[in-house]
């Protein structure tokens, strides 16, 4: 397919969903079936294209940008911003994952509509999100990156705010009484915006500073990375810019202690919102570290690596403890994300090829597994009308298939070897034993490794605790006589790919590593020399 060569194919993957959103919005609201089909077809075509992309991808040159638009494709000439998009081995898995999750979410929604209904608007938001997410992963221009990064904000904000949990939440300390969905959506929006404001600031600073070395101002990630590799962004300037980027990305990940928007957003969001949030949105932050912060500011990345590593491990342990105290199933899964993303950040903080590879496979695995967990938790709370694990019990009796799937997802989430989650955790720990020597804090990282390993034990602890309460035992009196439908067709269709991919990536991690390894090795070599 020649039109993949000059960036048209990739552009189509990015913008097809938003075109779909426009089409959906133009359709009459009453024609729900037609709206669903249109949305699904747009998502499916996008997925098909991204699979073609993955097949056509030259894995022997995974460290080069492929299928891209020319680097000088004009966009906003006034600020020298270009429409430069491309994929390499690092972004390819994320692009495919985003397209896949979009399709699964639409399939799942087929007969699971959160109130107040309105499929037209919800599906339009899902499709806009898809464009924003994919765009972020392929953007090679900071302005473009920023725009896509922010595009996801509004649809998610509305998704939580409109279709979210309507129960009243009393905010501790302040005593505000607010609807859960309003509190959560507000917090999500403001928190993320707060972070990205500093990120934007960093981008702008880089833009002005680049003139000193290039003779012109540039937002190009490629050009800035070259400058970064030459070690020009240093000193106070480098530090401030890195902090700006750090805030933007760390909020999104989210890293402890910037994580408190996450449990609220996840708990309040409708099922598909939680899935998209967990599966893709959180990865925008970690991806930003790998694609932007490390290559452009390698010296600062090294300087702050111990700090990031410590925060990551605090997140792992802290998230696990918070999980152990939960009674709300969705909240437990949300806090587990803090822990899992802690492993991803620990991998990144080692600044080694093994660690960053671990981070990427960890991102993909978390997307698959936590996506599945949120799907299941959503379906279960839909049936039980509660997320309280003290009230649910004996799901293996009431809905054996659902129970088995939850068991599978929980086992995958606790990092069972031969399932996808294992590689990210184990390799992150391995990388921490042997972090980049330029950091000069090897002993610290070895200590972090030990705490990370303790984290894997705690993770097993809360996952088993959840299974004990939700899956096992006998159904409580409350639900003993209520007939509950086991996994339905739409759920099977949406979940089976996640189950199969969790197995496939677990047994053949090469599916991911073959794409990422060369790209990561070259990224690390370029940023840190040799």
């Amino acid at each position, binding site marked *: 397919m020649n039109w993949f060569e000059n960036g048209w194919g990739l552009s189509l993957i990015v913008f097809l969903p938003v075109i779909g959103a426009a089409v959906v919005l133009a359709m009459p609201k009453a024609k729900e079936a037609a709206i669903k089909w249109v949305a699904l077809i747009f998502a499916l075509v996008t997925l098909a294209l991204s699979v073609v992309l993955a097949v056509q991808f030259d894995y022997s040159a995974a460290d080069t940008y492929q299928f891209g638009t020319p680097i000088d494709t004009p966009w906003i000439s006034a600020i020298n911003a270009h429409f430069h998009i491309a994929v390499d081995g690092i972004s390819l898995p994320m692009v495919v994952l985003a397209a896949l999750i979009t399709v699964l979410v639409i399939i799942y929604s087929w007969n699971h509509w959160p109130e107040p209904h309105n499929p037209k608007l919800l599906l339009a938001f899902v499709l806009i999100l898809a464009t924003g997410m994919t765009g972020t992963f392929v953007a090679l221009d900071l302005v473009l990156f920023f725009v896509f990064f922010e595009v996801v904000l509004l649809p998610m904000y509305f998704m939580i705010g409109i279709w979210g949990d309507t129960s009243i939440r009393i905010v501790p300390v302040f005593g505000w009484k607010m609807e859960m969905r309003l509190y959560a959506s507000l917090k999500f929006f403001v928190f993320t*915006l707060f972070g990205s404001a500093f990120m934007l*600031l960093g981008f702008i600073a880089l833009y002005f500073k680049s003139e000193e070395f290039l003779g012109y101002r540039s937002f190009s990630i490629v050009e800035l990375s070259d400058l970064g590799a030459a070690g020009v962004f240093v000193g106070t300037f480098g530090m401030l810019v890195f902090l700006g980027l750090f805030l933007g990305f760390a909020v999104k990940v989210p890293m402890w202690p910037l994580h408190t928007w996450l449990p609220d957003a996840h708990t309040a969001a409708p099922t598909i919102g939680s899935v998209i949030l967990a599966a893709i949105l959180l990865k925008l932050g970690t991806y930003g570290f790998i694609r932007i912060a490390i290559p452009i500011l390698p010296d600062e990345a090294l300087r702050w690596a111990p700090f990031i590593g410590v925060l990551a491990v605090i997140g792992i342990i802290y998230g696990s403890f918070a999980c152990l105290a939960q009674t709300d199933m969705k909240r437990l899964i949300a806090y587990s994300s803090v822990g899992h993303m802690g492993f991803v950040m620990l991998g990144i903080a080692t600044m080694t090829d*093994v660690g960053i590879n671990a981070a990427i496979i960890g991102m993909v695995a978390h997307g698959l597994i936590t996506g599945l967990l949120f799907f299941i938790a959503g379906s279960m709370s839909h049936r039980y009308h509660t997320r309280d694990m003290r009230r649910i019990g004996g799901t293996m009796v009431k809905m054996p298939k659902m129970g088995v799937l939850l068991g599978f997802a929980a086992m995958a989430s606790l990092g069972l070897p031969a399932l996808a989650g294992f590689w990210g955790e184990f390799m992150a720990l391995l990388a921490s034993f042997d972090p980049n020597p330029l950091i000069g804090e090897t002993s610290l990282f070895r200590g972090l490794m030990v705490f990370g390993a303790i984290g894997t034990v705690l993770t097993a*602890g809360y996952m088993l605790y959840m299974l004990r309460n939700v899956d096992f035992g006998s159904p409580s009196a409350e639900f003993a006589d209520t007939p509950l439908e086991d996994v339905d067709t739409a759920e099977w269709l949406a979940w089976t790919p996640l189950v199969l991919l969790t197995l496939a990536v677990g047994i*053949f991690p090469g599916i991911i590593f073959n794409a990422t*390894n060369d790209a990561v090795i070259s990224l690390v070599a370029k940023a840190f020399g040799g």
Partner: protein
Amino acid sequence: MNLLATIIPQIILATEEGGHAEEAAHAIVPGITSGALVEWAWLIPVVPLVAAFLIVFFGRKSPFKGWLMAELSIGFVAVYGTVLFVLNATQGIVYEGQVEIARIGELTLEWGWMVDGLSIMMYFLVGVVGLLVFTYAKSYMHGDIRFTWFFASFSLFAGGMLVLVASPNMIQLIVGWELVGVASYLLIGHYWEDLTNVDAANTAFMVNKVADAGLFLGVIIMAVSVGSFRFNDVIDVVVHGEEGALSQYAFWAGLLIFIGAMGKSAQFPLHIWLPDAMAGPTPVSALMHAATMVTAGVYLLGRLFPFYIDPSGLFGGDVRNIIIVIGGITLFLMGFLAVVQDDLKKVLAYSTVSQLGYMVAAMGAGAYTAGLFHLFTHAFFKALLFLAAGSIIHAVHSNNMVDMGGLRKKMPITFWTFVMGTLALVGIFPFAGFFSKDEILASIRYAGESGQEVANLILFLGIAGAFLTAFYMMRLVALTFFGTYKGHAKPHESPKMMVYPMIGLAFFALTAGWVNIPGVYTGFTTWVATREPLTGMGDHHSESFDWTLVAITSAVVATSLVIAWLLYGKDADTQSERDRFRIPGLWPLFQNLYYIPSFYMRAIVRPIMGPMANAVLWFDMHVIDAVVNGVGAGSVVFARVVRATDEDVVDTVYNATAAATGASGSVLRKAVSGRVQQYAAFSFIGVLVIVVLFIVF
């Protein structure tokens, strides 16, 4: 002529170009190093795993509701394992197959399969014992609510163990290791309607997970130091005595890996899960306590044996003293616990822990062959004892020995096979345990004489352990089979499908020890040796029996049997009358398992689940989140002030933002009353201010 040297060839890496040229010089007789037989051996772990999946999906509609698939798959392993076992015994087999699955940094990830003495012994054990137990289980589990599911989990259990023992690298070892763990979780919690069973399963999983964390770290240190996950690359470094990263971190790597082994092989103080694991159906115990799972730790010590025996003194030699002490403590302390149990299966469970202590102590003494030999014989007679116990439980509908007694006449085959298992476990000539336990004690004595001082102490514990073993087994036999029947059900001999596997195992309980008789026939020694360098590494094979030791242990065992018979042989109405020698201070200590489980509960589990977890959550909501909400609320206030003072600037930004947000947001605008836009406006002002600062500076 050293038989070993003639039989054990080099590791030849069939899929690797070049191989190990330097070591090839050592090879004397290659034996079987290639060919379809070994190249297709990857089927051994794969077939039961595939069967497990097929049973889940198609089991209910297949013949015998999935049992047949399970039986055929384990039968395949048994046949393949036996063929390999026989060929290895006659010709020697060494082969290692690898398939690269990924590269990460400079490391290579592979799936592979070992076909060497150590792995072949395990294939044989898992296959043969597994086949007999699976056959037995069809009848035992008849009418179970989750019959099909049981055989799926059972196949997964066997398959996971085979993945583990087939593994040529540490990653695959971990995969098999945890597959066994998760399968055991499913099997222990088989009756999950009752939460006590689920708790037992959770305990097993969590204790193993704690140990696994040690294994993870040990493997990481070892793999990073060597630059490879392959056992053979680690062993090459050890054999050549290369100083470097591995020698630098050897103690920690060795200790952490041993902690992993302690978990699976239920060594003190990580033994608590194994008796709890009795919550699962009895066939599970038979497999778990014999060929599968608990043997994994001993197997791993065997696989890394050169590292621990450490001829150059650079590597894991120091850890061996820890290993032998842990083994010694386990075999001694756990023996007492078996004495005070009233639950038939629990007596056997603590007996297993105690016997595992012997194996681990042997490994710690540097006695590779002795440790594996006991693993080999124990697998048969312990599986037999559990199957016979299951037969009893099946008949009397109770685990408790209070409900038994006098079963000798009612269940004659069960009685006689059980007695054979007992004689093997206690170590009576010519039953299997006699030879393997003697070899362990002889090796520990040899280690003591060769300078490992702590071994002298462990030798005493070992002999005392033999006393305890004989005592609790005689007690068990007396309480169960002699006296009068006290139960309520009407016991009768079990069906043929259950009895035949017991007879099969009884045959092995008698004969399995004859493959390694000092001075007569020591074939086993050569069968399990994996590569030539092992022979020169202090593994001691005595040329004849250590007659002094044989005399001492035999006397000790005989005395113990007599004492136990005198105490328990006489019938009594209640258990407490029989246990009339209860020692006031010690009896509660033993019955409460030295208070170790309650210590874990009070010192670790409850504080973590309760105060610590709650404190973190409280901190999250009342401190971190309060800061966030406070900053948010403060910004709103501040934004209002700014707006009041600088209408123009703010309004411009405000309107711009509002326009963007509002375009799609009419639904929510009312609800949040513009607060979002205010926040947004504030953020943008902040940005502008800092941009200006940047440009200036």
